[in-house]
């Protein structure tokens, strides 16, 4: 039936296995694929189906657009999309650059991971810095200090400057009620606006990427993945992530029902007590509004187990900005956010 795969992480690993077009040698260290089809039956696991769907979308966008770019933060979802892109074009290189909208409120280990990944894969990284916009007065720091909503303008400028007609993102429909209505290919006008009441119907697996001058398309290859799918895929493919996704000791304090890390942009108030806790991050974003969860899940299988048992959504658990209102994400998306 199916030849056991070479170490699947070879696609993105620092020292890839010597994969050749000839049937690969079984790698004893690699767990048997969860995907092996049963004798005589044509059955794929859900991860295989989602993976093939995502690869199809990525290839379709690369074939139909002139200058695609991938929004890459070093967060798990964008890392998974990059991994899928590497698989889609193997043995060639990923045929588009990466774009990071840098809020300036980053976790240092995520930036280190981002740079190391870009270097390893020989890709080009474009960085749009919110700090530059604040420095020259185009944007103003918000009273609450969070910079997630400030990403939109630098993002749109970077898309225009790079003349990108397609922008890949790792957004998933299970993240938020507004994202649940998002298309896989989502047309944006020259202001980057999302018009949820006037979206193109998406039929069969035929994606319509037609757009006019000034418009661009956001492409979400892992729209149909859940947080648990993402983690099971990271486990199966042995995909490297920034270390803060796994349990570690960190100085934190309690605010708005979340554990916030101490740091230059997230100083505790005098009423808040700093303590060392074993935590991990379920999402990685602007350090000033991303919370950690208490966890002892220090390995990928422990995280998979934890996510499977969690009774709270990842954004509900970790994003202060999405707690502002029921429509916080919808409002940001309409303004051009991803």
């Amino acid at each position: 039936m199916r030849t056991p795969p070479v170490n699947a992480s070879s696609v993105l690993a620092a020292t890839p296995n010597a994969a050749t077009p000839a049937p690969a040698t079984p790698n004893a260290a690699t767990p048997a694929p969860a995907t092996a089809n049963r004798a005589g039956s044509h059955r794929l696991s859900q991860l295989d189906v989602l993976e093939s769907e995502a690869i199809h979308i990525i290839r379709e966008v690369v074939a139909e657009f002139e200058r695609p770019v991938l929004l890459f933060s070093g967060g798990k979802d964008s890392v998974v999309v990059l991994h899928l892109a590497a698989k889609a074009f193997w043995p060639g290189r990923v045929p588009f650059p990466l774009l990071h909208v840098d809020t300036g409120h980053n976790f240092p280990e995520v930036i280190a991971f981002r740079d190391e990944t870009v270097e390893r894969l020989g890709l080009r990284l474009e960085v749009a810095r919110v700090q530059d916009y604040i420095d020259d007065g185009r944007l103003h720091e918000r009273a609450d200090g969070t910079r997630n909503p400030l990403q939109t303008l630098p993002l749109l400028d970077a898309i225009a400057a790079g003349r990108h007609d397609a922008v890949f993102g790792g957004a998933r429909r299970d993240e938020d009620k507004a994202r649940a209505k998002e298309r896989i290919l989502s047309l944006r006008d020259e202001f980057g606006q999302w018009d949820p009441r006037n979206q193109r119907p998406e039929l069969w697996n035929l994606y319509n990427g037609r757009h006019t001058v000034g418009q661009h398309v956001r492409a979400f290859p892992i729209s149909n993945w859940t947080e648990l799918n993402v983690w099971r895929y990271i486990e199966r493919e042995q995909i490297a992530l920034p270390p803060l996704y796994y349990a570690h000791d960190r100085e934190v304090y309690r605010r708005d029902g979340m554990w916030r890390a101490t740091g230059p942009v997230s100083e505790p108030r005098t009423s808040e007590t700093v303590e060392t806790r074993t935590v991990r991050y379920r999402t990685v974003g602007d350090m000033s509004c991303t919370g950690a969860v208490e966890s002892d899940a220090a390995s990928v299988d422990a995280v998979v187990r934890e996510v499977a048992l969690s009774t709270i959504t990842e954004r509900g658990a970790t994003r202060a900005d999405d707690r502002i209102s029921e429509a916080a994400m919808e409002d940001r998306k309409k303004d051009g956010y991803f």
Partner: protein
Amino acid sequence: MTQALTDSQALTDSQALTDSQALTDQAGGTLFRFATAGSVDDGKSTLVGRLLHDSKAVLADQLDAVTRTSTERGFGGTEGGIDFALLTDGLRAEREQGITIDVAYRYFATNRRSFILADCPGHVQYTRNMVTGATTADAVIMLIDARKGVLEQTRRHLSVVRLLRVPHIIVAVNKIDLLGYDEAAYTEIADAVRAVTAELGLGEVHVIPVSALAGDNVVDASPRTPWYTGPSLLELLETLPVVDEVESALEAFRLPVQLVLRPQGAVAVPAADAPAFRDYRAYAGQVTSGTVRVGDAVTVLPGGAGTVVTGIDFAGTALTEAFAPQSIALRLRDDLDIARGAVIGAAGTLPDPTKELTAALFWLDPRPLTPGDRTLVKFGANTVQAIVTAVTGRLNLDTLEQETAASLDINDIGHVTVRLAAALPIETFASSRRSGAFLVIHPQDGATLAAGIATATGVPA
């Protein structure tokens, strides 16, 4: 549930640990896609909310938000006053107006399967939403209000589902509690449903008595309907065959080529291995039907050249066979002129490419279609210019009969003839859903105007 849960509570919640489904290895489970459809007020949002809630797909913080909003609005239902519709209405306008505007996608899993649910609104832009949900669905759940029985609208919805060849149809007779769980009343409706499906020529249809509000037969069999011995809605969803598995086995191999992988110097493999890839050339795409094995004889369109499959690559993994819906790259024995838009198929099974098409269109745009209109047609990895040469009729959804029409308006299902600027290997939708479907696109603004299904190819007699 009004008390806000903290993360640490959530993660150490002993109740959660008793939930056996969460611990099941879902990685091995299959994926099942279904859509819900129905009319206004037949309780669809409530059913979807119930399905998500009772299968424990609604997490504490979501439920907390919905409970809070329900209370603010004075919702006086059961279940501690939860308005389940709020779980699915994601947009501000939807919550404010109490309506559902656009298709929403929901995700939940049981220990057997993971599900993608396309929740299709029943009133605004009905056909558009229904078509969107139905084209990717393994199953459609059609809701009927038990107090109203089979309506004209039910017939319309079923005829759309039939035309799009949705593999499985489930009719949920909802609000059975309001009929006092009366068997005779249910049987009368179920018989009427089967009469309509027989009239429409639909195959097996699953009919289930449910109460979305009270939860009867949604997840578990209800003790209040002892006369119903069939599966609950969720049991059915867990056991119906996934369409790709079925069609892979029945249909001939097809691979629309999305792009050619020809890295030449720019390889992502270690330098030592790079020479082996200098002449690498493979044809990337997603298998739309059938199975392909190394050594198989294949035909390539356009051109009709024959060759043999020498390799099936999946990102560094060499496969010996592949089937729908895998995304693969095929290596072939001969150097042929193959580019995006080509179709590779099992030898001798591909149709003759055609420039003339007879098709049914589900017209989705507010601008009407009139004969002579120039459009684009997207089929597989091809987008070609097209002219609608004639509108030959329109389906009257009340009588289900063909009537004459000079043009098509939004939500019409019309019959047309189309001339294409380049010949495409389109097959009839009746013989293959994947190889008989296309999009009609506006040539200037790029809007998706219609979903098209080929009813005949070649020059009409």
